[in-house]
């Protein structure tokens, strides 16, 4: 009986230059793939569509492929929603309220809170604080949350906690309210997109 010989000479202690370079290039390929992926992701996520409303003097850039809805201005000027999201759809909204010289941010937030407390389940205002973002206007922010349920009673879905943020800036005769509503679980991720949206918003 003969056994196929295991070649001892194949036991190799050192790596040849060819093998070493092959290894370096393969590792570099892996690292390059991750870098390209991060870059692609940033490009795709920051891709934006333009919205222009000359009547209200608003120019906005919202995330590409989000659904745009316009209103007559009673509830909001426009809003965009991410329909690809499962469950609650993240929404950015811009609305305008008429104001006079005595109106303050606090009075507008209080009025909004009263209105929302009547319409939204378990509405709670969390905080009101000065806006510290990088957009070039002075503003105040309000954070709040409520519980959203599907309006269709036959839909088998669990209510979700929605976190909202309003950024309110006062001009001479109107208050512009920029709102984000998002599932509380994904709020921080969506906040990055919202900050981009606010930074690129032009109010004339």
């Amino acid at each position: 009986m003969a056994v196929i010989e295991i070649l001892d000479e194949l036991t190799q202690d050192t790596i040849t230059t060819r093998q070493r370079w092959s290894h370096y290039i393969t590792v570099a390929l892996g690292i390059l793939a991750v870098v390209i992926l991060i870059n692609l992701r940033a490009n795709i996520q920051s891709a934006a569509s333009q919205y222009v409303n000359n009547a209200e003097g608003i120019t906005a850039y919202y995330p590409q492929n989000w659904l745009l809805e316009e209103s007559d201005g009673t509830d909001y000027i426009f809003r965009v929603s991410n329909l690809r999201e499962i469950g609650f759809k993240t929404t950015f909204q811009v609305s305008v309220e008429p104001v006079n010289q005595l109106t303050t941010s606090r009075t507008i937030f209080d009025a909004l809170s009263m209105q929302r407390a009547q319409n939204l389940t378990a509405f709670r205002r969390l905080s009101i604080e000065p806006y510290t973002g990088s957009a070039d206007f002075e503003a105040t922010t309000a954070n709040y949350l409520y519980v959203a349920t599907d309006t269709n009673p036959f839909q088998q879905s669990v209510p979700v906690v929605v976190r909202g943020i309003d950024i309110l800036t006062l001009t001479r005769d109107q208050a512009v309210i920029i709102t984000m509503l998002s599932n509380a679980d994904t709020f921080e991720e969506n906040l990055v997109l919202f900050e981009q949206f606010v930074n690129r918003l032009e109010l004339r």
Partner: protein
Amino acid sequence: MESQFKSQLIAPPTQEEEVYPYRRAWASILSESALITVATLVFMFLPVFVAIPAALAQWVAIAIALLPFIAWCAFSWIPESRAQAPRNRMLPVFILTALVANAIGYPLVYRVLQVELWSSQQELVNKVVIYTLAFGIVPESLKYLVLRYTVWLNQFRTRYDAIAYSAATAIAYATVLNLRYVFDSTPPPDIAALRIFGTTTLQVTGSLIVAYGLAEIRLSKPSPLLVPGMVTLASLITGIVFTLRGNIANTRLGLSVSYPRTIFNYAITVMVLGGIALAMIFLFQTAEKQSIEAETDPNA
């Protein structure tokens, strides 16, 4: 006078039989693939004949996710211990790959980069590029690194060692992805079976392609670009198959009645598995023949 003695043997010597001391890697992989292919078909059509209780569905899905691992144990790991010259590092390579997949590969692609969230609405070519990078190069590079730093130098005695160890990394990586899938999504068994089959197939075919590069760079003198080239090729095939399955085989939105084309999806996966397995068997056999010819050629 010289006496003449003519010996007569009671049992004449038989022709020496050549014994192959290693476990036959191709036979194991083909057996595992055949088992998973048939099992997937059974689970796909099981709901037509048997109503699986909702309470059992999750357990059945977990069992399907573990099927590639069970097949690998039955056809690769256990027979390995019976071989005359066993590949001793099979289990460490398997465990290390599973840990790497769970700690680096899965979190990087699905949690940090969240590729599925932002890639689905892209154009076809963009999708191929994204899936090639995320679902191809990332796992293939990680599996390559595990092999490179554990068994590549001194445990690769023949080209078939590369196949055996690469298959171990593929099954380990696929098992982690499959278990994550059934625990995170709780899919029905027929859907789970198809997805698990697809994931396992792409991992195995990708690893076989990279195994060729690893074996050649260890036992021959190819270009240094062979291994990265094989990683790229394996990843590109993964990217194309992912896109094909997503765009052609899945349910489409439309005004008419639509349904998931599971058989089409299954057929694509089987064709990829069969085609790449045949191509790799041919490549490995050719390389082995060339190697033997080079050894026996006095002019070489």
